[in-house]
């Protein structure tokens, strides 16, 4: 009986594509050809970097977004709008501040028209299950972050959903609280006390995915695709220090640092504006290069170990490493980062020389930086509006990415003294540039 139920597929995503329509140029693709099958009784992680479209996919599954192409089948029926039997837990908790814990938990039942007495008893059961007993009449703002996310969980569980969706549920919590909540959830899940049939969670934390889930789908970015699918063969409870566990985490690091083919081309032939710049500060870059150059790494480090030592999450460390690679200061390979020749020279240089090295790297490898400087040099008054560049970027990426990319470029260019920027007038210029 169990095995048959276990094989039944709850959810199917077929050829799902999400694109935002652009006026002039081609569509901006966030998700491309994503396929996913979810069976009863499994907990699956969507693992990827921020911007890889995994949260978008979760919202498509929840029926909050309609995909541009492809279809979502929930219990063999196409999904239109929020599906019955699917409940969601939010990264930001999304609790209603004017409702008490009890009222927040009852909300989903109330929407279904469940009678008051049944609502109350079911809400109490969910509140007790998730360890919130005694907090029923508290308002969310009186609770700590961990307690708030427990309310978010209880609110989702009280409707007894077949599928529980979780959007980075622990990433807004501190390390200890997050671990405490994860363990509680896993215990309930493995004891079969969670009133759900399967769980789909989005995360960027590799260890979290390996610790909790039965299956991991690794996403690649730009556009978001399922790059790899891994089975986690361990039984609960899992031990983070188990060598097999560590090996799996290491392997996934390797998968996530392996560049998809078309992006490699973007790095080696930098004549394109298509690659968004990641919001990485120059101080962070310098700090990472200094750390890499010094002992114990002496120029080469294993990413998981480096992340642990620097207390960075993979989501923070990878953009940093990739930006250093973009500027040819370092090389990423199979979960390792190696300081390149330019990087070594940067670490050894003094402040002014560092700026000069950085400016050289910017003009050589970041087409947008080169373009801005070129325009400024050509203009008689050496001024140019930022709007012009933003428009150009928006032909290749979403407005948010364009804004982020431009902000990042402004920070880098100012540091490198490649150009100045007037925030008020939104103008690049060559004032105060030697």
């Amino acid at each position, binding site marked *: 009986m169990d095995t048959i139920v276990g094989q039944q597929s709850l959810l199917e995503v077929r050829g799902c594509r999400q694109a935002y*329509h652009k006026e002039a140029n081609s569509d901006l693709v966030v998700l491309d050809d994503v396929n996913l099958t979810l069976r009863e009784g499994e907990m699956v992680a969507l693992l990827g970097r921020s911007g890889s479209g995994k949260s978008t996919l979760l*919202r498509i599954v*929840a*029926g*909050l977004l*309609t995909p541009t192409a492809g279809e979502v089948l929930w219990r063999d029926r196409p999904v*239109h*709008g*929020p599906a*019955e039997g*699917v*409940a*969601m837990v*939010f*990264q*930001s*908790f*999304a609790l*209603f*501040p*004017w*409702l008490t814990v009890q009222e927040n938990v009852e*909300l*989903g039942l*109330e*929407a*279904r*028209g469940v009678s008051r*007495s049944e609502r109350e008893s079911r809400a109490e059961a969910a509140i007790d299950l998730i360890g919130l007993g005694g907090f029923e009449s508290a*308002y*969310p*703002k*009186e609770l700590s972050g961990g307690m708030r996310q427990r309310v978010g969980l209880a*609110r989702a569980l009280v*409707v007894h959903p077949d599928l529980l969706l979780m959007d980075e549920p622990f990433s807004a919590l501190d390390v200890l609280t997050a671990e405490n909540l994860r363990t509680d959830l896993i215990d309930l899940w493995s004891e079969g006390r969670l009133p759900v049939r399967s769980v789909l969670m989005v995360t960027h934390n590799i260890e979290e995915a390996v610790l909790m889930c039965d299956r991991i789908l690794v996403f690649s970015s730009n556009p978001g695709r399922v790059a790899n699918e891994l089975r986690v063969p361990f039984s609960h409870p899992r031990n983070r220090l188990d060598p097999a566990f560590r090996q799996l985490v290491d392997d996934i690091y390797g998968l996530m640092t392996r560049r998809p083919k078309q992006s490699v081309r973007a790095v080696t032939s930098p004549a394109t504006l298509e690659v968004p710049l990641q919001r990485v500060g120059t101080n962070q870059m310098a700090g990472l290069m200094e750390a890499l150059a010094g002992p114990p790494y002496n120029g080469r480090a294993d990413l998981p170990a480096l992340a642990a030592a620097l207390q960075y999450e993979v989501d923070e460390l990878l953009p940093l490493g990739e930006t250093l690679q973009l500027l040819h200061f370092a090389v990423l390979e199979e979960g390792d980062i190696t300081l390149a020749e330019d990087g070594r020279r940067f670490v050894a240089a003094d402040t002014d020389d560092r700026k000069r090295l950085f400016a050289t790297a910017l003009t050589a490898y970041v087409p947008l930086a080169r373009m801005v400087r070129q325009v400024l040099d050509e203009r008689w008054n050496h001024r140019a509006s930022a709007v012009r560049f933003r428009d150009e970027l928006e032909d290749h990426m979403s407005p948010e990415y364009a804004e982020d990319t431009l902000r990042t470029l402004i920070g880098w260019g100012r540091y490198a003294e490649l150009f100045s920027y007037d925030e008020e007038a939104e103008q690049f210029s060559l004032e105060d540039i030697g």
Partner: protein
Amino acid sequence: MSATLHPALAEGRRLPNAWDAAAILCVFAALIGIAHEAPSTFERIDAPQALTVSLDPVHLPDYALRTTMRMFAALVASLLFTFSYATAAAKSRRAALILVPILDILQSVPILGFLSFTVVFFMSLFPGRVLGLELASIFAIFTSQAWNMAFSLYQSLKTVPADLKEAADSFHLTAWQRYWRLEVPFGIPGLVWNTMMSMSGGWFFVVASEAVSVGDNTWKLPGIGSYVALALEQRDIRAVCYAIVAMLAVILAYDQLLFRPLVAWSAKFRFETTAGATAEDPWLLRLMRRTRLMSWLADGVGDTVSAVGGLPLALRAYRGTPSQHSSRLFDAIWFVLLVAVLIWAVMKILGFVSADLGLGDLGQAVGLGLLTLVRVAVLMVLASLIWVPIGVWIGLRPIWARRAQPLAQFLAAFPANLLFPPVVLFIVYFSLNADIWLTPLMVLGTQWYILFNVIAGAAAFPGDLREAASNFRIGGWLWWRKVMIPGILPYYVTGAITASGGSWNAAIVAEVASWGDTKLTAHGLGAYIAAATDHGDMTRVVLGVVVMSGFVLLFNRLLWRPLYAYSERHLKLG
């Protein structure tokens, strides 16, 4: 069955107690008061008792009650308007295209100038009845509150956090449930605050609108405003003082009985993730909680409202991506329609005004408008020079700030037109120049907005920045220029916008003042509108009001908006 619904009642814990006696007395007194006053609104205007006002202070409580009830009626109307208008504007993109700019313009129209129109209009609806006059007065108050409140709710509805919206959707809340469970609660703190501020403005209008004269007819609705108007005619300064005292009592009661509890209650809906310092509950709220019967009643009302809001009415809220192509076509049709209506409206106004008036009249109105503009500008500068230093001084001393804040708010609510007579008396006695000395009346009521906003700004100024400033021995003018003024600018601008808007409106009553037969007139657009109203010259009233609206709009667009945007962008702390 009932035992499961109200277990507390079954246990006998909610039997009435001594506090209930006091509360019940208050409730019945209010009900009797309303029952006593209501029939008079249906009397005929020529009935002997209907429109006679007596200066005997015995009647003052009665007049105060009637004035208060007008305020209440207007408040109810404003709330109805707010919920329908703001919801329509927020829910329909096409409706917003027209509703939002209309609201924006209505906010800058000096409604006092239209008083004569509205009186004629409402009197024609109920010919010969007092009700027409009452409605005109209520409408004047309504216009001073509704735009502001609707804007506040509209902005809240547009800024509901995305994650809460998603949560509501994913839990299948219907559109109706979503509105009452998410959108309205989110808008409540802003709405309550704006209602309170609008009420402050409302007192000014109720006093001004009770005694109305159009052409040769003068009507006096029984109320504090008419009482003062009569006192002015009869040169009775003692009666004016009585009226001032009565008004103080009324505003105090309104503040304590209605708004303190409301603001405290609305704090629950504030969208914040951390528990802030909570102020002590106002006494009325505590009283309500202590009484058994009253709190049981309040709970009952609350539960009913909540149950109605929770009804799964309407279709399931479904959010799909609307098809782009058909909506573009409709957009185009909608836009063409709007432009057509706009052109028609402009033609209509031009036709109406140009029938009797020429370019010369326009020039005259604009010239007078410039005079009033100079007045408003000078007053803003003077009021700022006086109140910014005082406000900063108070705001930096927490104990003082806590005391002064409610006081300044209270002064802002006090209808300044009640304070005109003493000033007029002063001018007449010393035979001073009306053009100069009538001017301060325009900011008499509105300067307090600057004061209490500056106090709030200075009180919120971060302690570490102050410490840094004194650590680097920054003092004197440099301290004002680089430390304090940038720090309080967003607050100051908020206050100054309200104050300058109010001053324009006040110009209509402040540029003309009378004491018995003596009439003082300053040169300005306000006096122009007032004189046109007196002569029943509707075309000149329209011209004056349109020109004044134009001035207010330009003043806001060219000065306050950019300043506000600048301070929001650069100087917002935290």
